[in-house]
């Protein structure tokens, strides 16, 4: 991964030299082990700060809709698919964007690492090609990276950016995944009581900080249904049904738009399982309308279009 960092820096410097960008959004080292952090580079000499490693977990596309001027962005497969979503929804202009695409082998789930360590604090982490070495005051542990991937990375079939201007390194072979919706099918198989109990348990944890919404690239609305006062659709507190409605509608608003980047789950400070809703919708949209988000910028989003023979078995 060290090479990728170098190549990203070079690419960034070159873009500044050639006056192709005013800003590059990438990652730099974070302040904690297992963390990289988004950074905003405005001068070629600052490109030194850019890094690439298995901790570049944020979906940087989130920052794009508000940016003016020529912007460069370091994009993984999922970030690039979010960019496709923006192009589809006319939130950004392709000609103002330079995409530095980086093939991605998956970003390590820091919560998974912490869980393995119990409550031993992590003081430093070193990353190798296959594994990471985690060190604390009185321990050192090797962990295989592939065992630490979150579900969204584990089943990812878009490791390579779908859209880019510069590609860092070689494209990776895409994974073959037998059933990306395995967990969803398992959940669908449970009884309504079980599903309801799980949904209650997850939403009960929520503190309505809106980190999931704000971390999500497609939640770019100027005025969110959550904040509307006239009408106020539902309550703003953590009363259980209000929180549930927040989550149902948040998930519903991702219909045909979620690329399963995992940004919402990573952002959640309370470990709410947001993906079990998003992924369900992804599955249904594929089944019902044969649509997959983040593929073709010119294909309209599924809820803005229709076919005369769309499924209607649910209608009397």
């Amino acid at each position, binding site marked *: 991964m060290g090479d990728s960092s170098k190549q990203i820096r070079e690419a960034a410097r070159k873009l500044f030299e050639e006056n192709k960008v005013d800003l590059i959004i990438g990652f730099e080292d974070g302040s904690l082990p297992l963390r990289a952090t988004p950074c905003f580079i405005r001068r070629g000499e600052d490109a030194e700060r850019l890094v690439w490693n298995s901790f570049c977990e944020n979906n940087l596309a989130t920052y794009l809709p508000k940016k003016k001027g020529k912007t460069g962005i370091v994009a993984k497969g999922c970030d690039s698919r979010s960019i496709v979503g923006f192009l589809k929804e006319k939130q950004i202009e392709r000609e103002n964007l330079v995409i530095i695409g980086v093939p991605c082998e998956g970003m390590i789930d820091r919560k998974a690492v912490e869980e393995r360590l119990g409550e031993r604090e992590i003081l430093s982490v070193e990353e190798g090609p296959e594994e990471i070495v985690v060190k604390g005051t009185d321990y050192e542990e090797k962990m295989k990276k592939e065992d630490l991937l979150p579900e969204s990375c584990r089943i990812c079939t878009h490791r390579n950016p779908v859209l880019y201007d510069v590609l860092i390194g070689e494209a990776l072979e895409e994974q073959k995944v037998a059933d990306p919706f395995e967990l969803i099918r398992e959940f669908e198989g449970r009884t309504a*009581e079980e599903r309801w109990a799980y949904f209650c348990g997850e939403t009960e944890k929520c503190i309505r900080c809106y980190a999931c919404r704000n971390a999500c690239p497609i939640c770019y609305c100027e005025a969110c249904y959550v904040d509307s006062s006239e009408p106020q659709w539902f309550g703003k507190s953590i009363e259980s*049904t209000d929180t549930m*409605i927040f989550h149902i509608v948040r998930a519903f608003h991702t219909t045909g738009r979620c690329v399963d980047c995992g940004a919402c789950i990573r952002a959640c400070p309370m470990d709410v399982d947001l993906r079990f809703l998003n992924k369900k919708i992804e599955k249904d949209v594929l089944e019902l309308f044969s649509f997959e988000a983040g593929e073709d910028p010119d294909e309209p989003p599924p809820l803005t279009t229709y076919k005369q023979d769309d499924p*209607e078995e649910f*209608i009397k």
Partner: protein
Amino acid sequence: MEMHEALQASWEPKIVAFLCNWCSYAGADLAGVGRIQYPPNTRTIRVPCSGRVNPLFILRALQNGADGVLVSGCHPGDCHYLSGNYAARRRFAVFSRLLEYVGIEKGRLHFSWVSAAEAGRFAEVITEVTEEVRKLGPAKRLVKKKVE
């Protein structure tokens, strides 16, 4: 317990029906003019088009104590606004699956196409929906507790 059973026995489902102005509402009207009998459990909200129905309308109805919700519009191809019901069909295909997925009972949420001429069909749909909701009993999930 007896009290509870007594309450259960006298319980009647409350159903909120969002009816499109051009077809289903007119169908309901015709049913009325034709004195066709159907259960009195629905509270009708007239909307310009089934495409006008925001899923938040449905959630709000359920949260505020509706035991069931019906959305009814024009048959495909008959939309006054050409494609409103097609858009609604896609939206509610996803939305109804999502609600069922999180554990809301399948029979709480209903959709139908009823034209302005189908007075008999309207009565049938309402009867069917009312009976399905009645079978489920009073809604408990997603219902906000009232402040005592």
